[in-house]
């Protein structure tokens, strides 16, 4: 069989994206055309990339090539290997769904917003993401990385007329640039060691790095990638930026853009850096843990649907990092098999989160598209006008809550298993941490379930809470198809995990030198095992089938009863008052109140109730209720830092106060000092 031309397909895909970018901007005065171009090229490009990646992975050996660049100092070298390929595949899946979705979604933009510019930035984002995952050279990687940030900035600030979007965009790009700074320094350390900017050269040279340099590089990369991935405490940009972007972009931002941080960590920590310090894995694990728990706790307090989803991205990145941290620990401890399982857990969760988070954002986008609000307190009852969206969102919600038998459960299950395995193989103090981390993961999962009960129920169930919700309508068909693809992916990856897992063989082989997937599958290919003999097993396919089978008798019981004794529709029990209205309904704020009270140490909630009376205090005319939680990191960490910098800068202004005598004096004093210190014998 002749080899599939991976490179050609890859480059063609890039070319299609670039053409899309140019064509979109060129056709900015014809919105409909721009929309067709934008979605069409994205779809084509993504399909080509998907082909390239799938064949690249199937054919086994990584494809490596260089394009001679006009800048002689730097080479543009690409490598389509298992790790980058996996992320590219994730990207391609999302882009296919998002492109189809956007076809309907962007229609709304026509005549109001510049679709040409949107398409340009969108394609720029796609190109840069693809290049980031394929770059085999630090220089090219950084270019891809920053172009991605810039394109994302443009898209976050796309509604730049709104102050919120502008501010969020700036916060985003500033944090993104800070992470570029860290990466720049990190790469400089590696390049200093190897003398070349090629990733391939790092691995060999890393062995000669002094431990101090190695630690420094690790910290720099962890900071850099951590900011991008949105781990706590570098997360503040994420809940600000992701919600304000157009929803199809939010889906990509949360789905794949923050995953570039995960990609970078896997690439650098497991490959380029050779070995990491022994404490590194632990640090990653703990940071992941904190991100997961705090992420979901903050998510619970949100009633902005998209912000809520954004906080869940932090949580899930935390879960991914727990797996990655475990992989690092196992690797240092010399357990490649366990490291492989942990790595697969992390990477599979990356893929899963990409899919269901993308799905949820698209769902939120449909809701926003239909109701015009992101505030959950104004929604409700949308399941009736928007049944398909509601169903897709529900599947996404189940998946993200880590409930069986969908894909979120599988990757969390693998994470649990690697954490448990960690107890057996590590030293005294750290071993306690693993089960504790497992317990915290359980807390995270349960809180996530609570949060999504809230998100789904308040948005889609019961009565509409306002006119916006009561006039809602279902999204156009292309949007539904886009969501449908991802819904299908959630189910397929959940039930068919054992068929999918072999994809990871190449990756573990590349990063850890061992193909581990065979150890993970038993029971005639239906059952997932945790890798070691006698360890836990699970089969989502059987669980799914079992649920369906058991449904049979239950349905039978109910339908007999219903057929014989009837089923009526009636009003809800309203304590005897006349009729249930939307004002009686439970709100998102009320739903999370119990947790707000329990975790008040963290939230420091503040509430204010003002009652306006007319005559008697028993008959209030108006009641104002205000409640907010303290954004701890913003208030305690970033605001003081910012204030310090600005106060310092303002104070510095006095050195440029317009006095020419002062200016001359600066030079004079410098001269005298230099003469005194520089020349004297």
């Amino acid at each position, binding site marked *: 069989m002749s080899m599939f031309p991976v490179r050609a397909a890859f480059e063609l895909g890039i070319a299609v994206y670039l053409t899309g970018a140019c064509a979109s901007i060129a056709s900015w005065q014809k919105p409909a055309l721009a929309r067709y171009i934008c979605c069409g090229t994205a779809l084509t490009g993504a399909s080509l990339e998907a082909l390239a990646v799938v064949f690249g992975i199937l054919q086994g050996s990584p494809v490596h090539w260089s394009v001679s660049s006009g800048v002689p100092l730097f080479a543009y070298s690409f490598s389509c290997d298992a790790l980058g390929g996996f992320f590219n595949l994730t990207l391609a899946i999302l882009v296919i769904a998002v492109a189809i979705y956007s076809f309907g979604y962007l229609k709304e933009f026509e005549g109001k917003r510049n679709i040409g510019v949107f398409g340009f930035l969108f394609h720029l984002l796609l190109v840069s993401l693809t290049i980031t995952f394929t770059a085999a050279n630090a220089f090219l990687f950084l270019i891809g990385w920053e172009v991605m940030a810039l394109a994302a900035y443009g898209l976050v600030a796309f509604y730049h007329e709104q102050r919120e979007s502008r501010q969020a965009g700036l916060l985003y790009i500033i944090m993104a640039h800070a992470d570029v700074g860290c990466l720049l320094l990190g790469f400089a350390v590696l390049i200093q060691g190897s003398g070349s900017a090629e990733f391939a050269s790092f691995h060999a040279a890393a062995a000669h790095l002094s431990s101090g340099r190695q630690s420094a590089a690790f910290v720099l990369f962890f900071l850099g990638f951590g900011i991008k991935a949105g781990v706590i405490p570098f997360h503040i940009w994420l809940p600000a930026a992701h919600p304000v972007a157009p929803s199809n972009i939010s889906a990509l931002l949360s789905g794949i853009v923050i995953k570039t941080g995960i990609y970078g960590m896997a690439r650098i920590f497991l490959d380029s850096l050779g070995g990491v310090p022994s404490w590194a894995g632990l640090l990653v694990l703990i940071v992941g843990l904190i991100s997961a728990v705090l992420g979901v706790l903050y998510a619970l307090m949100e009633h902005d649907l998209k912000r809520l989803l954004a906080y869940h991205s932090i949580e899930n990145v935390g879960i991914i990092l727990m797996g990655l941290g475990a992989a690092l620990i196992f690797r240092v401890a010399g357990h490649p098999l366990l490291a492989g399982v942990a790595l697969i857990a992390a990477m599979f969760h990356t893929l899963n989160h990409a899919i269901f988070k993308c799905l949820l954002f698209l769902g939120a986008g449909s809701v926003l598209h239909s109701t015009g609000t992101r505030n959950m307190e104004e929604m409700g009852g949308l399941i009736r006008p928007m049944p398909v969206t509601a169903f897709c969102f529900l599947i996404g919600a189940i998946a993200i809550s880590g409930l069986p038998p969908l894909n979120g459960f599988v990757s969390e299950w693998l994470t649990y298993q690697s954490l448990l395995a960690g107890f057996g193989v590590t030293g005294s103090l750290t071993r306690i941490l693993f089960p504790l981390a497992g317990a915290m993961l359980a807390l995270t999962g349960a809180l996530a379930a609570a949060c999504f009960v809230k998100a789904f*129920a308040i948005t889609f*169930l019961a009565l509409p809470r306002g006119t916006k919700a009561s006039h809602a309508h279902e999204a156009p068909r292309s949007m539904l198809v886009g969501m449908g693809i991802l819904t299908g992916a959630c189910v397929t990856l959940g039930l068919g995990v054992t068929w999918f897992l072999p994809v990871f063989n190449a990756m573990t082989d590349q990063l850890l030198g061992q193909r581990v997937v065979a150890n993970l599958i038993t029971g005639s290919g239906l059952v997932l095992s945790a890798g070691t003999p006698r360890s*836990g*097993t699970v089969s989502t396919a059987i669980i799914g089938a079992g649920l369906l089978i058991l*449904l049979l008798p239950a349905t039978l019981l109910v339908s007999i009863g219903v057929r014989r004794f009837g089923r009526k529709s009636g009003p809800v029990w*309203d304590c005897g008052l006349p009729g249930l209205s939307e004002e009686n309904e439970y709100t998102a704020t009320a739903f*999370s109140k119990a947790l707000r009270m329990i975790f008040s140490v963290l939230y420091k909630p503040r509430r204010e109730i003002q009652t306006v009376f007319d005559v008697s205090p028993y008959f209030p005319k108006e009641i104002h209720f205000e409640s907010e939680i303290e954004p701890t990191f913003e208030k305690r960490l970033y605001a003081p830092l910012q204030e310090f910098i600005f106060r310092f800068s303002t104070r510095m202004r006095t050195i440029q106060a317009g006095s020419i005598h002062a200016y001359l004096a600066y030079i004079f004093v410098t001269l005298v000092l230099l003469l005194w210190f520089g020349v004297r014998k």
Partner: protein
Amino acid sequence: MIEVLINSGLQLMLLLLVAPLLSGIIKTLKARLQTRRGPGVLQSYRDIFKLLRKGMVVPETASWIFSAAPYVVFCTATLVGLMIPMTTTHAPLSLFGGVLAVIGLLALGRFFLALGGLDTGSSFGGLGSSREMTISAIAEPAMMLAIFTVALGANSTNLSEMAKIAVTQSWRFLAPSQMLAFAALFIVLIAETGRIPVDNPATHLELTMIHEAMVLEYSGPYLALIEWGSSIKQLVLMTLLVNTFFPFGLSSDWTLRTVGVGLAVYLAKMILLACMVVLVETANAKLRLFRVPELLMVAFILGALALISTFLF
């Protein structure tokens, strides 16, 4: 394959039959302890049977989620029951889901039940769902820690594997770690099954009810499914508790004698545990909602201590 099916069938029967009985036993015992006559051990069967024969009223405001919830609750609870060793160490579906799947499936049931509660638009439903999700969220880590303590001993999260290991070391339950873990899991059991001091299954007072508030709008066959599912869940959790920590009498082969002994010992253990639950229920008053986290925190600490002591002793 056939063996699995037969085994499943048998255990399914056992589950469906024993679960209401256990609820009945608990109710009766409780009544007796409070010097009331009580409804009789079989009352739960009668309730379910009666509900199945009632017509049902579905709220106008509800969507299909409301209708889906009872099925999910029932199916998940039953499926979980098939993953847990009851009378033998071989749970029929043990290979297909260990303790993590058990917790996950129960959570799935709870997820839908909470959605069902909110679907009606009634404040009671929202209140119940909110409280249920909150309490289960903080119960979860304690539960995990306690179970991990056992799982780490067995080196597996597979319940049958755990049971097999436990059977071979019959006096292990006296180890401090096991006792602490048992205590933790017992508290979680109280919380998860909605018993005093966390929830009062017998009240419809809005200030206190949790589970009952969620299912307030259900009627007829739906309610039957939910009640039945809940009692199965209770049975499953109690089974989990006794069989992980006190695996006496679990048969490890398929002779009639061992299975018979296993069944008998199993029932005895369940009744004993039921007595414990009843004692706790009777001796305590229901806690205020915001004191419940403290109780669960105690469970969490116990779990953590259990874990540390596996490592010490």
